[in-house]
């Protein structure tokens, strides 16, 4: 499947997770997206995305009872805070928080699936409009792994001359050289882009492979998923 229809499918599932009314539907969508994410190659990157999704959802679940005031079946009654009022947690708030957390989990997992499974270069090269924006996004998506590699290289070079990098303070000292290195890299890349003719009028694009029936089916499925999500789920 081409990355564009796959991206549309993940976006549709994320949208359906937001729009579906029944919590069981949201849970099934989140479960399917989790299975898709687990199909990605295991490693630090996958763990980071999944942990991020879980943490975000958990935060929503924990905070919702304190920012909403619904229900009449309190499970816990806390202190009274001036201006804010009496803190309490009701069954209805917990249920609402759980559903909100599930929705956010679904959206987060949809993004994680996009980040882990899709070839972003191919996805963005298939976009016909906004070539400069396309390139900026392509370069930005590589910024974090590039910085990670630079940081690992700096730490290795320091270890190589007997300088240990430990603790938050030790790692914080790397921020300045990392930023300076990024700026220098950006400058050199810009020079290369200029020399390679970027930005001159009359640019063309290599022919992209035609979409196959599976790709069109995925796109249609994405549209249908959103409609079904709104109307029935």
């Amino acid at each position, binding site marked *: 499947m081409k990355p564009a229809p796959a991206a549309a499918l993940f976006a549709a599932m994320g949208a359906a997770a937001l729009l579906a009314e029944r919590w069981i539907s949201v849970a099934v969508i989140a479960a399917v997206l989790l299975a898709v994410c687990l199909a990605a190659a295991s*490693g630090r990157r996958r763990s980071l995305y999944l942990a991020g999704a879980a943490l975000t959802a958990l935060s929503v679940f924990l905070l919702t009872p304190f920012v909403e005031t619904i229900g009449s079946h309190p499970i816990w009654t806390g202190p009274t805070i001036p201006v804010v009022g009496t803190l309490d947690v009701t069954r209805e708030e917990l249920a609402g928080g759980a559903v909100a957390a599930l929705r956010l989990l679904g959206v987060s997992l949809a993004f994680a699936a996009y980040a882990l499974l899709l*070839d*972003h*270069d*191919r996805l963005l*090269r298939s976009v016909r409009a906004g070539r400069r924006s396309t*390139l900026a996004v*392509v*370069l930005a998506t*590589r910024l974090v*792994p590039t910085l990670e590699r630079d940081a690992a*290289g*700096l730490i*290795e*070079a*320091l*270890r*190589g*001359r*007997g*300088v240990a990098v430990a603790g938050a303070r030790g790692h914080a*000292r*790397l921020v300045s*050289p990392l930023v*300076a*290195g990024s700026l*220098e*890299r950006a400058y*050199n*890349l*810009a*020079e*290369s*882009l*200029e*020399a*390679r*003719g*970027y*930005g*001159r009028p*009359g*640019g*063309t*694009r*290599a*022919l992209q492979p035609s979409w196959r029936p599976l790709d069109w089916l995925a796109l249609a499925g994405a549209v249908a998923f959103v409609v079904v999500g709104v109307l029935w789920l």
Partner: protein
Amino acid sequence: MLGPSGSGKSTLVRALAGLVPHFHGGRFEGSVEVCGEDTRRTRPADLAGQVATVFQDPEEQVVFGRVEDEVAFGLENVGAPPAAIASQARAALAALGAEHLAGRRIAELSAGELQRVCLASALALEPELLLLDEPTSQLDPDAADALVRLAAGLGVAVVMSEQRPAGPLEVCDRVLFLEDGVVVLDAERDSAVRWLARNRPAYLDRHPEPPVSAPAGLCVCRLEHVSYAYGGGPPVVEDAGLELRVGEVVALVGPNGSGKTTLAKLAAGLLEPARGTVDLRGRAAYLAQDPGRYLVRDRADEEVALGVDGDVARASVALAAVGLAGFEERHPRDLSSGERERLALACVLVTEPDLLILDEPTRGVDPERKDALAALLRARAAGRATLVVTHDVVFAAEVADRMVSLGVPEAVHA
């Protein structure tokens, strides 16, 4: 185009590409005409297609994540017919023996493979003028030789700035020699060779005398049956063994991707072997391939002093030893590539380790400085074990008591 580090070779390359004056600020006098265009009035992007440039560091030139997309990028910018872009890109890769890299991710490539991709990106444009700024710096001797001969056979004007001049001198038509920003020589090859023989013999192909070796002393590092693989991939080093002794300089040579850097890092204790043992007795210092990893501080002396608890006096001595006396207050990022390489060398030399490991220490370093480096390493060989990972076989012959060759995928035996 030859000359010491910081002599202006890269600046001249950029002037030919129009990047000076349009991209780089400064004062510009005189004129540069390329393919009938005055570069003062024609932007570099408009010259692309007629002029193609490959800069020193391949990693800082790539845009896309896949090789075929990267090579196609320049063709798209110059408006090549869409139907022809893919085939032109593949043809350029094939011309460099890199067609097998077409579907690969850029992040997976070795330094040498990446340099070939950058070259393919330039060749794909079928330029009239090809500018190559130290294109063989990351290539093993065979690949470097092949590249130089390929460039010579293109039938276009080629300007190649090089610090490994032996190969280019065999195939070039004309030689420029720069010093302190001035072209001190511009001559046909034969005349240039005679001039170099009289004035700059270090730049000519040499067969240096092997060093006088003293008997090797105690073993500082022993690797036995070590294997290592990155991230669950295939082994990069498999069942390798190596022994490094005090007073001995060992050169580790081999083609790109043969595992030299990995073996060096295992010896330095920077990597843990998946199998086998590494017995390191004493302190090891490792000089990384990329001198950009030694740009942490704002002053050169402070950068060097990091490894000796901030002792700037010792740092100054180390800077002088590598020919950077007077550079103490300079910002490391203001240095040329060769000067950065020497700064990085000072950073590890100052720690006076029991095992000194240098990974490609001559990258971007001019031949005269290489001779000085070889002399420095020989002078200090008595007190430590030294391992030099290098593509530069002339340097290896000049500095090493023993050469160890890594093949693919045979093991190393000391």
